[in-house]
């Protein structure tokens, strides 16, 4: 893409072709204003696409085989560890990392911090795709995925936490789609659609906060069904939901910093000025929010340990593993964030965000898989299971990139009048 831009191509950001005042078709927009051969040529030039091609060939095959040969073929089909990587990674890690949507929605729409506007749509998209792919992961993991709607319409178990998760993720997905409709409407030139949704945006955002608070917490509360199975250091009946909710705040914000950094580094051509110029400032702003959440999280973690009287476990091997997670995944990013904010160092904040993201991934995997059944044996996921996870995650990245290239997420759509008159 860079070379093409150097050659004078301008990325599509209007409904009209530059110079010719000709309305662009959807096909033009999909191909980013390039001809098909140009488009393919630039796609083939990218080595990352070759890697994806390899992943899709093998991973795709294994993923399809799961639906032909059953879960027993791709997982260890363990009775003691009913949840493997699909949920451990796909649900419990993906969902907190996607909390950015409701965080930024709240900041901009509810708190009126319009200075965060340039990054709001990226946050919403990050949320939407995270949830969407969490559902896809879930679909791979469910024994009978075609019954996904049963908890909604066929047989209801309303007293179950998972019932709440199902409903909330479903509703929240629609809320996020609605929140992103304006971006799509601009791109597809459907202004009426945009104004219709714009009116409801405050309501949608508040709905988003409620749903997010509850289902982020609910994912934690799912483990309160297994009080004796998760190691006490990662488990606390009264605090579990709050741990998950609170950590999702800095997880979402940190993920947003990471994603925006990747965008800036790899697709600067697609970002507009206001995004690129405000990014450093916004990064530090996000870092501030993340630091506050990290501090709160650390405090309630300690309170939970004190409340449950788990100090004794700290001396064990599990205790050291726990300390590692806390020091590397919580305290370190917290300190780095603070330094970066004090000294105005967005680069350091970006590094800290990466660590925080990894830290939260470790925390969720620890809760769902590693310390789960700590009194029993350790389950190592089947290689096919790992392969499928890589496949779906790659699909996620590619979809992400596909949308970022096109919809006005990182840039704002030029007003029709501006271009028409120019």
């Amino acid at each position, binding site marked *: 893409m860079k070379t093409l831009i150097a050659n004078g191509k301008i990325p599509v950001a209007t409904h009209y072709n530059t110079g010719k005042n000709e309305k662009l078709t959807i096909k033009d927009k999909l191909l980013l204003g390039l001809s098909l051969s140009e488009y393919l040529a630039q796609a083939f030039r990218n080595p990352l696409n070759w890697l994806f091609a390899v992943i899709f060939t093998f991973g795709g095959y294994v993923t399809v085989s799961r639906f032909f040969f059953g879960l*027993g073929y791709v997982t*260890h*089909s*363990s*009775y*003691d560890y009913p949840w493997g990587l699909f949920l451990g990674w796909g649900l419990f890690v993906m969902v907190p990392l996607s909390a950015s949507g409701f965080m930024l929605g709240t900041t901009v729409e509810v708190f009126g911090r319009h200075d965060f506007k340039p990054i709001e749509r990226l946050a919403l998209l990050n949320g939407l795709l995270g949830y969407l792919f969490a559902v896809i992961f879930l679909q791979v993991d469910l024994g009978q995925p075609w019954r996904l709607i049963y908890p909604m319409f066929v047989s209801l178990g309303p007293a179950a936490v998972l019932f709440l998760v199902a409903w909330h993720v479903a509703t929240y997905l629609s809320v996020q789609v609605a929140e992103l409709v304006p971006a799509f409407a601009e791109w597809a030139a459907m202004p009426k659609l945009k104004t219709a949704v714009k009116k409801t945006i405050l309501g949608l955002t508040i709905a988003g906060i409620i749903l997010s608070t509850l289902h982020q917490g609910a994912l934690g509360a799912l483990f309160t069904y297994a009080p004796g199975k998760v190691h006490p250091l990662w488990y606390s009946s009264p605090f579990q939901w709050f741990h998950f909710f609170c950590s999702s705040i800095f997880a979402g914000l940190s993920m947003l910093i990471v994603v925006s950094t990747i965008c800036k580094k790899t697709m600067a051509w697609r970002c507009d000025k206001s995004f690129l110029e405000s990014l450093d400032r916004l990064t530090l702003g996000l870092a501030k929010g993340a630091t506050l959440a990290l501090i709160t999280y650390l405090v309630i973690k300690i309170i939970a340990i004190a409340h449950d009287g788990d100090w004794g476990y700290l001396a064990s091997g599990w205790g050291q593993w726990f300390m590692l997670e806390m020091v590397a995944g919580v305290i370190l990013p917290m300190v780095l964030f603070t330094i970066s904010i004090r000294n105005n160092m967005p680069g350091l904040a970006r590094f800290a965000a990466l660590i925080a993201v990894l830290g939260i991934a470790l925390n969720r995997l620890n809760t769902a898989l590693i310390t789960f059944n700590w009194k029993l044996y350790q389950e190592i996921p089947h290689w096919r299971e790992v392969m499928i996870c890589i496949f779906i995650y790659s699909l996620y990245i590619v979809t992400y990139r596909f949308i970022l290239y096109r919809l006005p997420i990182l840039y704002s759509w030029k007003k029709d009048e501006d271009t028409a008159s120019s």
Partner: protein
Amino acid sequence: MELIQKYLLSSLMAMLLCFSSYGTNALAGEGPDEVEIDSLAQLYDPVYFDHAMHEEVTESKCSVCHHHTLGTEIENENCMRCHAESGATDEITCQGCHSSKRFDADYLHKIDADNTLYHRDKVGLKAAYHIRCMNCHEEMGVANGCQDCHTRTDAGDKFFHAGSYTPPKSDKPVGGGH
């Protein structure tokens, strides 16, 4: 021919009868020589219990097996708390007290309805045999496996997936998973 069959049949009947509705206040040495036990009849052939031999082994101390239903002194201290003075009762056979339908709804209701009953937790006939026999065999260090006393029928083999129904060797657990 017919006569012989009739004779055999009636002698078998007599043998069964003499165990099931045994006369009152039996004394040591008056027991049957052999008892046919067929309560597990589908899975195993009937067991021919050598009563005479067991009388010998227990030196005719009937209460080793028969609680306080026979003349000899009671062994179990717990039973003695009530039965030290109660002497022998009319009931001698195992099934006289131990129901072969221990968990049938009727039986359970009967116990339920009778709140004067002390022996509410009385094992059924099959358990009465097995607990008595096996615990003693264990103590004496004599053969104590299922098939040491029971010959398994074809239906039994099928039930246990044994004998000619033994599954082919394989290292994989059935149905996968672990």
